């Protein structure tokens, strides 16, 4: 969908700018080669790979267990969901079952991850718009409460390394569940406050409504997933479609957008946080007692049968998939990640064409990328 350049006579008006990789609004080391006519974007070329860490190849030399802490570092804001996606793939491959309590704990920590990711994402989006500090700090204040929960459960705020094949690493205490219920109980109030601050704000509306429209067909064709897809009005949420884990037991709705612009993508995050709070309330109420890990699952020396497996989950950013091929050895023969951030990024140029350069920053912020996942 690249537009033709203006005629030769106007070529000298065209300016090429390299935004990033050290640009403060590029969410890490992301670079965009932008061709501009005045302030209007004529062409945009994303350049990435600055944070490439050889993630997939390392996994092929490491044991299945040793890969879990590396998945923390994919999308380093959502280590719990990354762990889950990978654990699910290995469980499929090795044929392990997960006890019920572990499934509930997984849902709880994943929805908490969604809360803190979306809160942070909205904060950063507003930061990109020039609301320097205030919304981001409010979001981080709440995020910190979730991270404290993660720390007291798994030992680390962000690099949790919490899930194991067949369950989770440590059980959560009744005390922890009480603390989690308190954080979840207070989150609705924070969202009201947050929306009071932002949703009706005329500046926010002017900067986001009708900006960076992603048409429904394009979103589907490009393989966009997650809130970005649902903002364009496509009802596709893996928690409803795949019903992995115990998601079929919870009552929640999938918010859908109408216009597919930046404002819809912002609203999607806020509404999803409200739905996550609902899921969390139900999960914290219904969590059964029992073992937190499959007693048959061994920590070391996992050698799955020859075969392959693909498992996907709805991570806060979209469909996060892990593909594994086992040749019967202690390390995977092939390991591949389907990162939602990277695939959602492919439509960036289409959303940015014809927009102002200042909106490029906002559109990029609304995709919600983490370079750890894009480059891997």
């Amino acid at each position: 969908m690249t537009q033709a350049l203006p005629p030769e006579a106007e070529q000298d008006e065209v300016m090429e700018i390299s935004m990033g990789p050290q640009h403060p609004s590029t969410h890490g080391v992301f670079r965009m080669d932008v061709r501009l006519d005045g302030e209007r974007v004529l062409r945009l070329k994303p350049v990435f790979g600055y944070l490439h860490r050889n993630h997939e190849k390392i996994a092929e030399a490491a044991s299945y267990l040793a890969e879990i802490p590396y998945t923390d570092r994919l999308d380093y804001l959502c280590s719990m969901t990354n762990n889950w996606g990978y654990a699910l793939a290995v469980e499929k491959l090795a044929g392990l079952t997960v006890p019920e309590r572990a499934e509930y704990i997984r849902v709880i920590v994943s929805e908490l991850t969604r809360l803190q990711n979306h809160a942070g994402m909205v904060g950063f989006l507003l930061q990109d718009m020039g609301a320097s500090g205030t919304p981001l700090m409010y979001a981080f204040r709440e995020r910190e409460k979730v991270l404290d929960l993660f720390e007291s459960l798994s030992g680390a705020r962000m690099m949790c390394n919490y899930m194991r094949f067949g369950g989770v690493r440590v059980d959560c205490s009744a005390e922890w569940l009480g603390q989690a219920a308190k954080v979840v109980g207070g989150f609705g109030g924070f969202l009201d406050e947050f929306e009071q601050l932002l949703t009706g704000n005329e500046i926010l509306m002017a900067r986001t409504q009708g900006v960076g429209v992603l048409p429904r067909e394009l979103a589907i064709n490009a393989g966009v997933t997650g809130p970005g897809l649902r903002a364009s009005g496509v009802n596709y949420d893996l928690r409803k479609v795949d019903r992995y884990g115990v998601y079929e037991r919870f009552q929640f709705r999938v918010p859908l957008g109408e216009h597919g612009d930046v404002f819809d993508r912002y609203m999607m995050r806020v509404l999803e946080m409200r739905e996550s709070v609902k899921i969390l309330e139900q999960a914290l109420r219904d969590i059964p007692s029992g073992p937190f890990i499959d007693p048959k699952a061994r920590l070391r020396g996992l050698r799955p049968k020859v075969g392959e497996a693909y498992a996907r989950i709805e991570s806060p950013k979209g469909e996060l998939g892990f593909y594994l091929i086992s040749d019967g050895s202690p390390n995977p023969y092939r390991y591949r990640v389907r990162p939602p951030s990277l695939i959602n990024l492919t439509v960036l140029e289409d959303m940015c064409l014809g927009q102002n350069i200042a909106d490029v920053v906002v559109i990029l912020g609304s995709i919600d990328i983490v370079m750890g996942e894009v480059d891997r």
Partner: protein
Amino acid sequence: MLGEGIVKGLAETARNFVGSFIDKDRLVTVQYPEERLPVAEAARNFPFLIYDGVDQEEGLRCVACQICEKECPPRCIHIEKSKDKKPDFIGKQQFYPAVFDIDVSVCMSCQICVEVCPFDAIRMDNNFELSTDDRFAGLLWSKEKLAMPNEHYLAIHPTEAAEVEARRAEEKAEAEAKKASQPAAVAK
């Protein structure tokens, strides 16, 4: 009315600003080096080696089995096994690590070495202030620097350490009972 949303938002920030003077939940900033938050019990940052008793050479629990070295995802542990043996806590002759180095700059604090250790010899410390101006020798910790008394473990992870202590006491009692019954069998 145009501007209503902005006014509402400003009222919200004003509520937060004024609230920060009276409400503890709204004043969340901690002036770090002077003020410190309590560290969570589960918090982990960098491994240490446990020794029992007072002498760290004597009491080091590590038997240089090198499982952690193999399992460590970023491979930051380097172990060299000793030539001779020394008795462990139940009196069994075991090897000990002649060299046990961990590279602080490579370690990613994942705790897998702790989980795989069958001898309860390596545990996570919660000390996070490990920066140094010497990036070579200062970041490669030898076993002398890694060794910590068991009391330290009991102090930082009390719940987990209590379980470990109970299990080890049981093992020791079992071994002693076995030892006590053995001479009788020989005499027979």
